[in-house]
């Protein structure tokens, strides 16, 4: 299976996403923002970083990139798309996911090993988790506060489209402790924490067992692998 990772100017975690994909047993394909070609990939990751410096709104300028037209098209046809952090912000700006992401309520960038609950394990990117499983995934952002109007929140909650929720600490003031959401079909998932940083023992988040040993992020990528093979 081939999973594309799009590099935008200012993308930072693109190489990490490619590494995660290969550790999960798939083939990573580097894609370039300026092209209109998805090179026949089966799924797409929009990686973390600060595309175009995130100066306007996070992900806003990147969401107008040439390749995003193809991504929007493919997503609407059901291709699995995962937006991580800046990628989540792009999905929101591209209106593939509802709501918006704003400055953290405490005003700072924050990096922490974040406990999450997997609220929905039937999306393309979460099928390898069990329902309500608690996982630890690194989080690092300055603008990760999820907001949406009442109606949207109700819809997300009602349809089970809140995929991940922060446990213990709400690190950025997100409404309803929302860490990640999906579209109605479940093929497009966006979240603020970084699964690609929890894929290799020695370089991941701390767990109760050992420092830097967390690999919960790997199953995002094995999930999509199995989904496509199935």
């Amino acid at each position, binding site marked *: 299976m081939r999973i594309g990772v799009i590099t935008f100017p*200012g993308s930072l975690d693109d190489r990490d996403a490619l590494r995660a994909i290969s550790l999960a047993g798939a083939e990573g394909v580097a894609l370039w923002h300026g092209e209109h070609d998805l090179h026949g990939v089966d799924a797409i990751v929009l990686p973390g970083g600060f595309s175009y410096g995130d100066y306007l709104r996070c992900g806003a300028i990147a969401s107008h990139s040439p390749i995003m037209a193809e991504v929007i098209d493919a997503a609407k046809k059901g291709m699995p798309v995962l937006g991580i952090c800046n990628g989540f912000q792009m999905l929101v700006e591209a209106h593939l996911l509802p709501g918006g992401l704003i400055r953290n309520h405490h005003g700072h960038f924050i990096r922490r090993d974040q406990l999450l609950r997997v609220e929905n394990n039937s999306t393309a990117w979460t099928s390898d988790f069990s329902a309500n499983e608690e996982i630890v995934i690194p989080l690092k952002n300055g603008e990760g506060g999820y907001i949406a109007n009442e109606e949207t929140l109700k819809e997300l909650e009602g349809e089970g489209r809140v995929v991940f929720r922060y446990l213990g600490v709400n690190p950025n003031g997100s409404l309803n402790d929302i860490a990640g959401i999906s579209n109605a079909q479940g093929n497009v998932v966006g979240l603020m924490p970084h699964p690609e940083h929890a894929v290799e023992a020695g370089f991941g988040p701390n767990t109760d067992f050992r420092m830097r040993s967390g690999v919960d992020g790997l199953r995002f990528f094995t999930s999509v692998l199995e989904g496509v093979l199935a």
Partner: protein
Amino acid sequence: MARHADTVENAVATPEKEQPFAALGLKPDEYARIREILGRRPTSGELAMYSVMWSEHCSYKSSKIYLRQFGQKVTPAMKEHLMVGMGENAGVVDIGEGWAVTFKVESHNHPSYIEPFQGAATGVGGIVRDIISMGARPVAVMDQLRFGAVDNPDTARVVHGVVGGISFYGNCLGLPNIGGETYFDSCYQGNPLVNALAVGVLRHEDLHLANASGVGNKVVLFGARTGGDGIGGASILASDSFDKTGPTKRPAVQVGDPFAEKVLIECCLELYRNELVEGIQDLGAAGISCATSELASNGDGGMFIELDNVLLRDPTLTAEEILMSESQERMMAVVRPEKLDAFMAVVNKWDVETSVLGEVTDTGRLIIHHGGEEIVNVDPRTVAIDGPVYERPVAYPSWIDALNADSARDLPRAANGEELKEQFLALVASPNLADKSYITDQYDYYVMGNTALAFPDDAGMIRVDEQSGLGFAIATDANGRYCQLDPYEGARLALAEAYRNVAVSGATPMAVTDCLNFGSPEDPEVMWQFSRAVEGLADACLEMEIPVTGGNVSFYNQTGTNAIHPTPVVGVLGVIDDVARRIPSAWQDEGHNLYLLGVTREELDGSAWANTVHKHLGGRPPECDLSREIELASLIRGASLESLIGSAHDLSDGGLAQALAESVVRFGIGARVWLNDIMERDAVDATNALFSESTGRVLVSVPREDDVKFLGLCEAREFPVLRIGVTDRSGAEAALEIQGEFTVPVSELRARSNATLPHYFA
């Protein structure tokens, strides 16, 4: 409206014209020397160049005669792994398997006081460009910070800005921050120190140097456009040479654009990969003046530049301002004409604006044209290399004997366990020892996926080769209080501590960088401190056989007659064959034995204990036995190779007490510790057993099954070792028990340690 710059022709014709050299920071004799070199008065453009390049910051005119020691006090062993030594943008060290590492620490102190956010941000940006210019991919940053008193109202302004700026720039650039230092002391009140360190990795064959060789090769400026940043000084020239309306408003501050720099990194790496540049130089202080004169000096000696080709952000800039502008995120490359098209294709791919300014010549002159006229015609070496050199007067400080005589030996000690506990808690919560998460939580260390260790571990560690696990570790240290007591010893102690911090991570120390932060060189007592510190560092490096590969000097950290404590920040780089072997600073298991390596002496002078409990600074810094440090490092390495130890934490500020506190708090696993064996063997009291800052000591945890082997190792090497406790329960019950003295729940320790910085800054 067109402004005509002062031309060479004009300079020849008007020898008597008065020039504002003093306002530009040049001394009368320096100005006279420029006239002598040129055989005429300088044009205003030349004056701009000489004045910035001959400044203390760029020319090292007060420090040069001392820094030479770093190149002289060397043994063949010290050169063995050095691919590039002092004098280039950054030193390069061969770490094996075809890999090399380049690293350097630099100051951005003054700008960070004026505008803390942008000052600190551009400090990170500047040092990272040094690393790129060596042909390396930057892979990590660190920040060494010194602020004024924690409770001074201005300190919060500086802390918020500086930390925010480092976080913003480093995170946005995608470089993991893997460590640093944070100290508060009123001596830094008007002179905070913001040092930034960057590390890069490269394959041996990718090494690039800053020189302009090959007559006819193109000189190309790329990256951000040139604006009026950081050229407060040049406006003096502008007003002098052009009109009577007074200087235009030119800010002294620079604004950083980490996004532009990130793109520049990727663009440069692609240029290197495709072998499209012959030489490259970053633009930092003194901008185009520095880049052109240095590239030319280090190459074939000549260069012709058409200044009109510089892409401007602000079209009203004068020639002098363009020459002096410190706009960030710019690079200058030397490119073969036949490769120019390929070069342009890469920069266009990355949307990086680029212009060809001129070419390399063999005239031995740096000639710059503007508006079709010659405004600069100099021998570039006289600008970049043969600047003034001063042997400034030094004077033994009048106050230092009295300070040294005032030992902490006579300060009252805790009378009982309860008092000892109060002192312990006070230290744990003191701003210099308290938990730094308020700061470090704002730094990303995950990006790039190769961070094996970062704060709060003693050293940061990065995997270089994903197949073999080859990596490097790095730590920096400087204890300004020790340096105030004795700058020679203080510098040696800084090296010893950084060396030890790298060693306890499991890596082998290999090379040194330094950032020497001092008061005014025009003060003979400061100059004495400086000379002693450099001598101490150079001697210590020679003794440890570990070379200084580069660094930076920051003078004038002084308000009136109040100089900062001498603060020579020393960074040590080590290599580790496989980062999987890394040793954390804190234990992760219950029931391990705790050993103290090294001996404890009555050494409380300059200590955190004296500072926190008695507000005292006096006496002599702790003794520093460098051969002991080498033995200690080799012992740890031996133990690590056999996987005998679970954790290792070096003892420094706050002594054993602080090492224990940090170790139990980190993973919430308590410990039972006894002091009596230390007190008996080393003939010290409980206060010293807990708070002495004797060097050459490390606290290690060893699994029971490896006990015999570990002790055998210590015995074989005749290294002093004492079993001082065991790791204990974790969870809600976890506590640190100092037997016969006191017990503190880990939760209380954590709460105390975590509360301090948020209390002042959150």
